[in-house]
C-alpha cells in the first residue's frame, strides 16, 4: 500500500473553510434557541418572584379572603383559595389515577394490537382538547341542575389528567422487561397475578411520576374551574367538596381584575406560590422518574 498524500490536511481548501463557518453558524443558532427556552422560564419566574415574593406573608396562607376590602383596611389572606385548590386537585387525582392506571394495564398487558392503537389515539385526542371545552362539557353535564361545586371542578380536572396519567403509565409499563412476565407465566401463574404481583410493582415509581406531573399540569388550570366551581364561593377556608370552592388560579384571575393595589399584590403573591408549587412538583417528579428508571435498568 502506498502512503497517502497527506499534504491536503495541511492546506484547507475554500470548501472546507466554508463548511467550518456554516457549522459554527448553525451551532450558534441552535445554542441561541436553547438559551431562549431557558431564558423564558427564567424571565417568568423572575418577574413573578419580583412582584410576588415580597408580598408573601403568613396572613396570605392562613387568613380568609376579605370580600370587600377597603384601602387601608384589613387585607386578609387567600387561605380559601389554597384549601380549595388542594381539595379540588386532590379529588381529581383520586379520580384520574386509578382509571388511568387501569387503562394503561389493559392497553399494555391485555388488549390486542388494534385496541391498543385505538386507545392510544383516543388518549392523544383527549389530551389535545382545550381545557375550556372540557369546562363547558362538565358545566353541561354536572353543573346545570346541580350548581357549582368543588366536585364538578375535580371532575373537569380529572378529565384533563386522565390522558396524562394513562399515557405515562403505558410508557412505564412498556419498559418492564418481557422476560419477567415470561418468568412468572412460565411458573403457571395466571396473567392477572403476574400483572399485579410482578409488572405493576416494577412500574409504580414511573406511574407516580406521571401522576405528579399531571398534578403540576392541572393545578394551574383556570378555564374548567371558571365553569364549575367559581360561583358563590364562601369567604372562609372550606374543605367540603360539595360546596363551590375557591381555587388559586381563579382567584388570581379575579383579583387581577380588581381596583385595589393590595388585591393586585395578593394576586402576584398567589401566582408566586402556585409557580413554586409547580416547580417543586415537577422537580420531584423528575427525581422519582430517575429513581424508578434506575430500578428498571437493574431488573432488565
Amino acid at each position, binding site marked *: 500500500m502506498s502512503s497517502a498524500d497527506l499534504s491536503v490536511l495541511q492546506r484547507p481548501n475554500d470548501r472546507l473553510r466554508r463548511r467550518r463557518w456554516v457549522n459554527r453558524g448553525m451551532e450558534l443558532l441552535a445554542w441561541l434557541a436553547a438559551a431562549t427556552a431557558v431564558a423564558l422560564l427564567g424571565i417568568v419566574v423572575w418577574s413573578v418572584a419580583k412582584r410576588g415574593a415580597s408580598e408573601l406573608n403568613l396572613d396570605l396562607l392562613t387568613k380568609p379572603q376579605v370580600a370587600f376590602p377597603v384601602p387601608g383596611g384589613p387585607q386578609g389572606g387567600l387561605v380559601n383559595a389554597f384549601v380549595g385548590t388542594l381539595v379540588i386537585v386532590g379529588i381529581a387525582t383520586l379520580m384520574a389515577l386509578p382509571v388511568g392506571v387501569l387503562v394503561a394495564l389493559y392497553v399494555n398487558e391485555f388488549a*390486542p*394490537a388494534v385496541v391498543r392503537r385505538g386507545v392510544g389515539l383516543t388518549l392523544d385526542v383527549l389530551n389535545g382538547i382545550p381545557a375550556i371545552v372540557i369546562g363547558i362539557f362538565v358545566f353541561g353535564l354536572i353543573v346545570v341542575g346541580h350548581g357549582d361545586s368543588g366536585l364538578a371542578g375535580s371532575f373537569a380536572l380529572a378529565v384533563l389528567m386522565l390522558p396524562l396519567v394513562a399515557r405515562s403509565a403505558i410508557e412505564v409499563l412498556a419498559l418492564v*422487561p418481557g*422476560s*419477567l*412476565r*415470561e*418468568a*412468572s*407465566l*412460565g*411458573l*403457571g*401463574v*395466571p*396473567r392477572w*397475578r403476574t400483572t399485579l*404481583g*410482578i409488572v405493576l410493582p*416494577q412500574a409504580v415509581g414511573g406511574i407516580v411520576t406521571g401522576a405528579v406531573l399531571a398534578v403540576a399540569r392541572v393545578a394551574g388550570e383556570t378555564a374548567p374551574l371558571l365553569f364549575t366551581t367559581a360561583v358563590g364561593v364562601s369567604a372562609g377556608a372550606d374543605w367540603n367538596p360539595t360546596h363551590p370552592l375557591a381555587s388559586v388560579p381563579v382567584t388570581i384571575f379575579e383579583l387581577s381584575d380588581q381596583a385595589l393595589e393590595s388585591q393586585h399584590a395578593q394576586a402576584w403573591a398567589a401566582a408566586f406560590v402556585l409557580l413554586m408549587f409547580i416547580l417543586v412538583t415537577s422537580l420531584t417528579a423528575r427525581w422519582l422518574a430517575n429513581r424508578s428508571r434506575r*430500578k428498571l435498568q*437493574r*431488573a432488565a
Partner: protein
Amino acid sequence: MMGQVRGDLVSASSTIEQAVRVETKRQPLPPRERLEQVFDIQDLTAIYGSKAALKGVTMDVYKNLVTAVIGPSGCGKSTFIRCFNRMNDLVPSFRQTGTIRYHGQDIAGKDVDPVAVRRTIGMVFQRPNPFPKSIQDNVAWGLKVLGMKDNLSERVERALTQAALWDEVKDRLKSSALGLSGGQQQRLCIARAIAVEPDVVLMDEPASALDPIATQAIEQLLHELKSEYSFVIVTHNMQQAARVADMTAFFSISRGAEGERWGELIEYDATEKIFTAPSDKRTEDYVTGRFG
C-alpha cells in the same frame, strides 16, 4: 492452506468424538418401547403469521430422561419447546397444527387452559430472569401464588439445595436476587421452576449466557435431578448435548422451491447414536462440524 483447514477440522471432530466417548459412559438406555412417554408429538407444525417456523415434527419425549434439542440457529428449536408449555400463545400471530399429547392428553387444543399446562410443565429461559425481589421471595412467590403455602421455608430450602445454590445463599436469603452472579441467577431460576414441583422442566439454552464453570454446575444439576423430573433442553452447544442428554433430537433448516425456510426434525435417537453413528448424512455433517 486447504489441507491445514481440513486437518484442523478432522482433529476438531475427533476431539468431539473423544469428549462424547468419555462422557457417554452412562447407563445404557432400555429399549424405547419400555420407556414411559411424557410427550407424544404428532405432525406438529408451528406458524408465525404466514411463515412456518417448524413443519411436521413427530417424536416422543420420555420420562426421567434428559432430551436435548440441537440444531443450527433458526431451525425452530426454541419454538418447538415453547409449544410444550403454550408459551407461544403470548405471540399474537402464532398458530400451530398437529397434536402434543402430554401423558395421553392433548395440550395443544383451544379448550386447554395454558395456565394449567404451565403449572406442571415448568420453564427455564435463555437469559437468567430472576424477579426483582429477594432470593427467598424469588422461590417463595410462585409457591405462595399457587397455594403451596405449607412449610414454605422448607420448600424454599429444598429447591435451593436441589439447584445447588443453598450453600452460597443461605446467609443472605433476604438480599436482592439481582446481586447474584449470572450463573447463580440461572440456578435460582432453576430453583424457582422446580420449587412448584413441575413434572417436566423445559430449558431454552439455559447456559448460553453463562461462563464454563457455571455451565458445568448446571449440567451437573441435570444429572442429579433427572430421577425426579423429565428435562427437555435446547442447546446450540453439541458438547453440552453430548454430556447431559440421554436422547437427542437434531433439527435442521429445510428450504422450499420458492426460497422459504422452515425447521424440520431430521433425526431423533439415543445421544450416543446421534453423535457416533448418525443414520442421516445431515446429522453427521452437523455433529462433526462440517456444517452449522
